[in-house]
């Protein structure tokens, strides 16, 4: 295990000093005086038809160098379905949708020229909610939905239902017909969450040697490359994407958005063009965590066995399918996770509305489905008289249990984690005394998430100065993977110190395909590709050293910058000596590695329309919250928060703890006060820091966390992603704790003081979904 001992450490961040000194150049710090500034003309109606769009006067305005419209980039893009134009073509589908773009010498000139664009729009009555969108006579948000290119086959689609994924295992009707069960039904609704990265979406495009070069603040350089090529209909390989340090992502930057526009304008002008969302634009067109509506029914025996479960989950994708098409998949694994269930059927639908499109946000889908499932579980316990902790201990997924798609889970993980939570609570004590007369509640909840594996590539160059260069398409968005876990992994493989490992920032011209930084995947997927690359490097290094030392390569080890004969510390020679010899005899020492999903199978016929049938790497959490509710104001104070997180193996425990603190606090915002609402005219009402209430220092408390190691993982060195999942069960833990404190069912987030007061005084109407049919099958496309 020397490889492990050389890898696991609390390595500090190499980017911390420059970030603290303000020297780090994020994309939006790279604006130069010779660049053109692009500004978007955005729709001021939620739905309409473009009757006239004349940009000729804008082109004559001072300083203007180009004006582009949808006609200049006619290709459509999307995930699953290509339904999204870069700039609106003929039809406007949301308030804030880009219609045209002006590039001028200054931002002021570009803004002034926007006023010269002649735009005539015939407004249409917007389809504002999922309830409206699912009416039989609803206007179609996409009249031409049938004609769209389907990028991924398998999902059912119809009209305003952009995508439908189903899972079905066992005889659910029979389970619900059993004489020995009781049926518990719960409905939940949640709003959107805005990411608010401090660096907004911003891109700098140039046209170099007949190709686009985009510098951008993104989590997905390869998606930006591919989408830009697609919408501009460029020859293969026509786009290069490079990524400076990213000032926060949280999932918002997991899709291409404004980047191709800069490439388009760069081609038109021959100049370098910067486009940066204003804060208002950023928030008004945020690809939020989607609002959702959830109905769950369970059939439970008096002994506490969950014989059957069915659920309908409606996910608002907004005007375009985007990430929600993919995320319908996750319901089977989140709402279908946590518990052993006899028979189950779940349907998840992404629904088009004339609202700003939604997207990915840290533990997408899982956050609200976990809230719904855990609150439903407490409602089961209330209805049947079970102790919530004992019920969970009895029913959480264990070794050999089946998931909703028939996946067989390995090992007992959640059960021992619940025991660890009890031990953690015993060590910290509880905080009921701090409630000081207010209503006190405590709740322990569980969650199931995953690592989004998928393809990654890595190249390692071993240099004659004793350093190694790691080349990947990874991006440092703040989580630390590029400055902590990856150099630790490579150093551990090659007998180097982490500071001897240079980590190249993403450049799609230099590194192979990567599906991006998100889904907790970087340490796992790029880490695995890096280990494969290091294996090739080691093989070449040891072969050369073996020749030089007249020793068999298998008798050599890499340690402390040397190639040594096993068991003889200080023997052999330094790595630079071997590398120099190799360079002169067989050539420089390089290695390449690749990784992708194992594609763990589901049970035949159980998963329909899913992008992921089964989880290659499940990740589990146990979260516990203690709250005090002020009965006079409805204010919820979080008194204590505890986490037991399944990390597989923590390569940098201190960094993982930092992710847990930050992720839990983002979850507290979601649970308690981050609220996005849509106005009557289809706008996001909270488009600045005054109206969108982010967590502040005085809102938070130190999270007590215990890292649970040793659960099975195909990740390198047994790792799992640790940065995404800390937000997963916060809405659940807070929702359950508040419900227990106030003695009323909590069925909606966020729990703002007015909502909590209404709940206390029984003035909060429970969610009702007339657009969800009573019979489960009636909510599917068959």
């Amino acid at each position, binding site marked *: 295990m020397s490889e492990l001992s050389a890898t696991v450490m609390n390595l*500090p961040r190499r980017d911390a000093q420059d970030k603290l000194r303000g020297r780090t150049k994020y994309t939006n710090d790279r604006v130069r005086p010779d660049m053109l500034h692009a500004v978007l003309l955005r729709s001021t109606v939620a739905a309409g038809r473009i009757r006239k769009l004349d940009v000729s006067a804008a082109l004559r305005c001072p300083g203007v160098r180009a004006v582009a419209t949808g006609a200049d980039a006619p290709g459509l893009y999307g995930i699953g379905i290509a339904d999204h134009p870069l700039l609106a073509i003929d039809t406007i589908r949301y308030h804030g949708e880009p219609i045209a773009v002006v590039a001028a010498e200054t931002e002021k000139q570009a803004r002034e020229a926007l006023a010269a664009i002649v735009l005539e729009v015939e407004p249409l009555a917007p389809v504002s909610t999922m309830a409206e969108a699912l009416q039989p006579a609803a206007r179609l948000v996409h009249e031409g939905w049938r004609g769209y290119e389907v990028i991924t086959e398998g999902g059912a689609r119809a009209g305003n239902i952009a995508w439908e994924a189903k899972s079905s295992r066992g005889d659910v009707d029979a389970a619900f017909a059993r004489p020995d069960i009781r049926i518990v039904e719960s409905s939940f609704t949640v709003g959107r969450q805005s990411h*608010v990265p*401090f660096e907004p979406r911003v891109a700098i495009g140039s046209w170099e040697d007949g190709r686009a070069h985009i510098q951008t603040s993104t989590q997905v350089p390869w998606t930006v490359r591919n989408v830009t090529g697609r919408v501009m209909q460029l020859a293969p390989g026509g786009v290069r994407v490079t990524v400076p340090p990213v*000032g*926060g992502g949280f999932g918002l930057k997991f899709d291409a958005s404004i980047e191709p526009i800069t490439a388009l304008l760069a081609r038109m002008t021959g100049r370098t063009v910067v486009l940066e969302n204003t*804060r208002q634009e950023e928030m008004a067109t945020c690809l939020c965590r989607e609002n959702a509506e959830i109905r769950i029914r369970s059939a439970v025996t008096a002994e506490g066995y969950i014989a059957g479960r069915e659920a309908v989950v409606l996910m608002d994708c907004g005007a375009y399918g985007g990430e929600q098409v993919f995320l319908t998949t996750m319901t089977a694994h989140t709402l279908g996770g946590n518990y052993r269930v006899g028979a189950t059927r779940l349907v998840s639908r992404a629904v088009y509305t004339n609202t700003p499109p939604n997207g990915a946000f840290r533990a997408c889908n899982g956050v609200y489905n976990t809230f719904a499932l855990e609150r439903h579980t407490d409602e089961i316990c209330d209805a049947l008289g079970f102790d919530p902790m004992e019920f969970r201990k009895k029913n959480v997924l264990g070794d050999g249990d089946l998931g909703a798609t028939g996946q067989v889970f390995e090992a007992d993980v959640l059960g021992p984690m619940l025991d660890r939570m009890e031990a953690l609570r015993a060590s910290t004590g509880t905080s009921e005394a701090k409630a000081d007369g207010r209503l006190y509640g405590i709740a322990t909840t569980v969650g199931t998430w995953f690592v989004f594996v998928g393809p990654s590539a890595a190249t390692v160059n071993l240099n004659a100065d004793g350093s190694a260069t790691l080349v990947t398409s990874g991006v440092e968005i703040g989580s630390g993977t590029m400055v902590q876990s990856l150099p630790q992994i490579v150093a551990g493989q090659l007998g180097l110190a982490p500071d001897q490992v240079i980590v190249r920032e993403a450049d799609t011209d230099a590194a192979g395909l990567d599906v991006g930084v998100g889904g907790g995947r970087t340490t796992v997927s790029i880490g695995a590709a890096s280990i494969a690359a290091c294996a090739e490097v080691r093989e070449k290094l040891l072969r050369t050293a073996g020749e030089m030392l007249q020793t068999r390569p298998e008798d050599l080890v890499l340690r402390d910058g040397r190639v040594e004969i096993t068991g003889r510390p200080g023997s052999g020679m330094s790595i630079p000596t071997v590398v120099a010899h190799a360079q002169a005899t067989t050539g420089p020492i390089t290695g390449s590695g690749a990784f992708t999903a194992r594609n763990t199978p589901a049970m035949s016929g159980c998963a329909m329309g899913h992008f992921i049938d089964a989880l290659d790497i499940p990740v589990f959490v146990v979260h516990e919250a203690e709250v005090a509710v002020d009965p006079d104001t409805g204010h919820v104070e979080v008194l204590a928060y505890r986490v037991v997180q399944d990390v597989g193996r923590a390569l940098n425990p201190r960094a993982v703890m930092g992710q847990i*603190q930050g992720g839990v606090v983002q979850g507290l915002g979601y649970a308690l006060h981050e609220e996005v609402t849509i106005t009557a005219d289809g706008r996001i009402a909270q488009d600045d820091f005054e109206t969108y209430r982010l967590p502040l*220092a005085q809102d938070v408390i130190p999270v007590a966390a215990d890292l649970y190691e040793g659960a099975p993982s195909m990740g390198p060195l047994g790792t799992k992603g640790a940065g995404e999942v800390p937000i997963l069960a916060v809405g659940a833990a807070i929702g359950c704790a508040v419900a227990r404190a106030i003695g009323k069912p909590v069925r909606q987030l966020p729990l703002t003081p007015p909502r909590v007061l209404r709940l206390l005084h029984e003035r909060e109407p429970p969610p009702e979904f007339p657009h969800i049919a009573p019979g489960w099958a009636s909510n599917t496309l068959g």
Partner: protein
Amino acid sequence: MTVIFQLNGEDCRFDGDPMTPLVDILRQERFLTGTKAVCREGFCGACTVHVDDEAVPSCLKPIGLVQGCAVTTIEGLSSGNQALHPLQANLEAADAVQCGMCFPGMVMSLSAFVRDNPHASRPEIKAAMVGNICRCTGYERIVDAVADRLEQARKAGQSVGGIHV
């Protein structure tokens, strides 16, 4: 209008609209991009600088109001090869940084705070952070770093913020 002020210890002259926000001069004309323009409304604190030793959001400071003042940005706090400001060193030691965009403003606000409040309690530190938002870290490590700084300064018996800014 002409405005004369000191910027990181050097004379600086601005000719133009006196209502131009200081942050725009710093970023767009002086290329001092360590000062971050995030919300531009005074809520986030990422653009905090010192004007005559007082921490202020530069988005809300019209350039005309810094006439004759000494402005220090994050670049001026520990420039060139100088050691980090002690608070920066404590933040680094606490592994507090994530995406890093809020930290220049956080450092400028809290370096003034520790200088003026050597005996601050943890709740007082948190209260002082009301104008500095961080979306990544969940704050506690930043509070830890400030508390560490104050404790170390007290132990050393020196006036806090010995590097005077």
